């Protein structure tokens, strides 16, 4: 199991477009990937668009990415890169 905390740095938060990007990246890996909002103990499958939007992850929220499977390290790295790049927004 690999975990990493990421912070949302784009002003708009995770709306439909970033969610689609996350799902696009997550779907490339076979590992089971979850996005977790620790404060509310909400865990959501990173391969589901509607799920990710439902998180309501806004600017400056911290999320925990947790992956389990053969390519978990790469998956977490790829997803945190996406957060780092602010989903190519701004």
């Amino acid at each position, binding site marked *: 199991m690999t975990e990493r905390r990421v912070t949302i740095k784009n002003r*708009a*938060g995770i*709306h*439909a*477009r970033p969610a689609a990007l996350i*799902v*696009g990246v997550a779907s490339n890996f076979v590992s089971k990937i979850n996005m977790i909002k620790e404060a509310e103990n909400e865990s959501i499958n990173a391969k589901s*668009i509607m799920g990710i939007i439902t998180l*309501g992850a*806004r600017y400056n929220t911290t999320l925990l990415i947790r992956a389990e499977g053969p390519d978990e390290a790469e998956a977490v790295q790829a997803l945190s890169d996406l957060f780092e790049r602010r989903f190519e927004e701004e």
Partner: protein
Amino acid sequence: MNKFTVLDLLNLDLKEHDALDLRCIAGRSGLVRPIEIPDINRPGLALSGFFDNFAFQRIQLFGRGEYAYLEKLFEEHSFASVERFFQNEMPCVIFSHSLLPKDEFIEICTASGCPLLQTSLTTTDFSARIMRALSNMFAPKQTIHGVFVEVFGVGVLILGESGVGKSEAALELITHGHRLVADDAVEIRCVSGNILLGSGANKVIGHHMEIRGQGILNITHLHGVSAIRDKMEIQLVVHLENWDASKNYDRLGDLDVTTEILGVKIPYLKIPVKPGRNIPILIETAAKNERLKEMGYFSAKEFNQNVLKWLEGENARTLYLQNSDL
């Protein structure tokens, strides 16, 4: 395009408010004359003897005015301008209002080998209709391999490799009460610059479908007239392709993706096919969503706007709570 002759014009099978109601009353030998310019000319000036820039290549339309002027000419026995008029090789001469010219006129016309046609329509009506018919005939066209169906009143052109299941999807749509316009070879015409009209490339073999394992089916006989349609505007292009796991398919649908046919942009959707995905239902949904978009409601965009509003609201709330702490 093959030459479009006066005979083809007579044989155009146009109905109701498109009908030209033409009949040939003289000069049958000239019916093979080609129509090369999709326009008409009112020959008033030529009849009065002024032939500069006379547009003889066009269809010559005689209305009540020209007819009255001819009457006057013949009363005065001055045939010179009429004879000179017929020295030009015009596609044909048409009289509106079912007007019948004098025998002398018919003689000169027949002698020159020019077809003489008559219509019961008024000049205004006839010129509007023939302009429409000609611009359709002369419109740029293209034949595309695909199936064209009308789904909930939306013209959906289904494209894809052979064997991907286009015809089968269309067959199920027809069974659901939608209509087949053309199977396999769809002839597309670009009408008035921005409208794509699709129809069967061949009238004789139209509304038949080839289904693997069953052979050729006559849709009209199997499902009745309500299951077919002659022509329809293309409003959506759906591209079926075999599911490719390495491809990222559109998950949001918030972009206006279009494809270009004959220079006209048409909304375009790529639908991956794999067992368990019911393609006809997906096409029905796409057609309905397209109708919504046309009515100004764009599901994906509205959805995202609501999400953005919600996130913004939450942001503001957090900020407010932080400030009140101070």
